[in-house]
């Protein structure tokens, strides 16, 4: 039971990494279309 919140925390961190990289790609997309 004690491990549950830790697992949740890690899942959130992993999701954050993927999300950040999706944001980079979106940013690249915007940059590409702006210039």
């Amino acid at each position: 039971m004690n491990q549950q919140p830790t697992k949740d925390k890690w899942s959130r961190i992993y999701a954050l990494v993927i999300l950040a990289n999706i944001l980079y790609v979106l940013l690249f997309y915007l940059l590409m279309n702006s210039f």
Partner: protein
Amino acid sequence: MAAIDWLILAGTLMTIVIYGTWKTRGMKNVQDYLRGGNEAKWWTIGLSVMATQASAITFLSTPGQAFHDGMGFVQFYFGLPIAMVIICVVFLPLYDRLKVFTAYEFLENRFDLKTRTLTSILFLIHRGSGAGITIYAPAIILSYILDWDLTFLNIVIGILVIIYTASGGTKAVTVTQKQQMAVIFTGMFIAFFVIIFKLPDGINFKNALEIAGVNNKMNILDFSFSLDKRYTIWSGLIGGTFLMLSYFGTDQSQVQRYLSGQSLKEMRLGLIFNGLLKVPMQFFILLVGVMVFVFYQFNASPINFNPQAQELVMQSNNVEAYQRIQDEYNQISEEKKETVYKYVNEKDHISSRERNELTSQIQFLGAVQNKLRGDAKALIQKSASDKNEKVETNDKDYVFIHFVLNNLPKGLIGLLLAVILSAAMSSTASELNALSSTTALDLYKRNSKKDLSEEQVVKISKWFTVLWGVLAILIACIANLFDNLIQLVNTIGSLFYGNVLGIFLLAFFFKKIRGNQVFVAAVITQVFILLFYYFAIFQLEQAGEQPLVSYLWLNFIGCILVIFISLISSLRDMDFMSNLTLLILTANLAKVVYDIFQTRNTHLLLILSIILLVIVLGWLDNLKSQTESS
């Protein structure tokens, strides 16, 4: 090079070597020497992992790549964050629980000794030859461009690395990599701002990006499904994930970096750090290259940046023809410069039709420049053939260093050379450290009949570091004697990576597969891959023909094949669903091989379906094991 450059270059490198050696002196136990005493914090691990991957070629070649082909190369790294998450979730907890010193030690725990020994040897072959090339690749470029002696440069880089890596082991590698990364980041940021500062009056950063965009250098993303194109978002996501998974998850030169972490949490955060920063870092290095491109829109540039190629053609009968091409190139460049100025100054005051006309004109002039560059390359090649010599006509490795040497102020040239040599040293150090640990632990200690003390293991590891270092220097020194050696060594990695990754994936996801099955499958796969490479790639390339597949696909084929053969050999233990999936997988694989040989084409969807099927198989297998064990 001015005295101040020498001072900065030598001062930076020597400070790092002396500090690293002094700070980590007197290592006596294995834990300290091979796992850095498990003291590394997450940011140290992150920097260390990044420093290991970023070799000198990253900083020499990547800006040149952007200069010629734009920023699409960044897509190659899109699989990296996915690989980082998979390693954090699957690989790290197991490595940490078993407290292994090398990745291959885990395989003995999961399978058997022979599988551990086999994968260690595969690692030693490709990483051992790779270490020589990590030294040689920047040394050859610097020796041409600065007229330094190649052998001397190889020996200096090699010895500097051996000194601190042998003396302080993993900890020395980690400590020095922090400083090397600081030098690298400082140097690259300063170079970037100097380029922006050196752009002509009236051209700011935004204009520079616009000029790059007009010249098609800002095409960062490519969504096409074509396999002919090396860098698309799909090849980055699929191929990149596979490649990064094998590199970061199973290559001891990377595994050893995060195994030095204080705890599982620090290791995970270290890799997360890499997953967050790697793509922006590569983007930045490419952006530097694009800014160099913009700089050369307003300043004269040679038609080919490789000085050796220039020299060769200048001493041949083709000198006049080459000069004519260079003159024409200069004329076109001048015309293009005027058009670019006109575009920047007038774009906001003219109609969109007129703006499009100017854009087309710039692109047309760019195409003419490219054609002239191609003509120059052909002439260089012809001159080389006439003299029976070999020359690299692709000048992407020389673009950035040419800019640095000819345009940066005194002092900064020394700093940028320190950046390149620091990058070479940081990668080599990790490689020597990993080669020595694998030889000492996986081969020597594991197979030694004597009970070795901690001090003896450390001593042996030190000697193996020196031995691998000397071997790397020797490879670097003789590398010049062989044609296409860099290409060959890059290929060697792909010959083994897929197989090794497949073995690890079997260990993690296919609970029922046993040691004997994996070992036999790995040996068959390796023989197949070597034969496939020889007949379908090497022989055709030697005959001047197009290879059947790019060598990068060998990673994928090796990985799938070892999993596939292991599953076949455990067929009797599996249920109906797994058998069915395996049947479809066989049909798919047969189709891919047929396509490769018949139509010289591999279908992305087919490959995706194979990956999906392997995942399904792994999942079914795992599910069954779990049900049985509960």
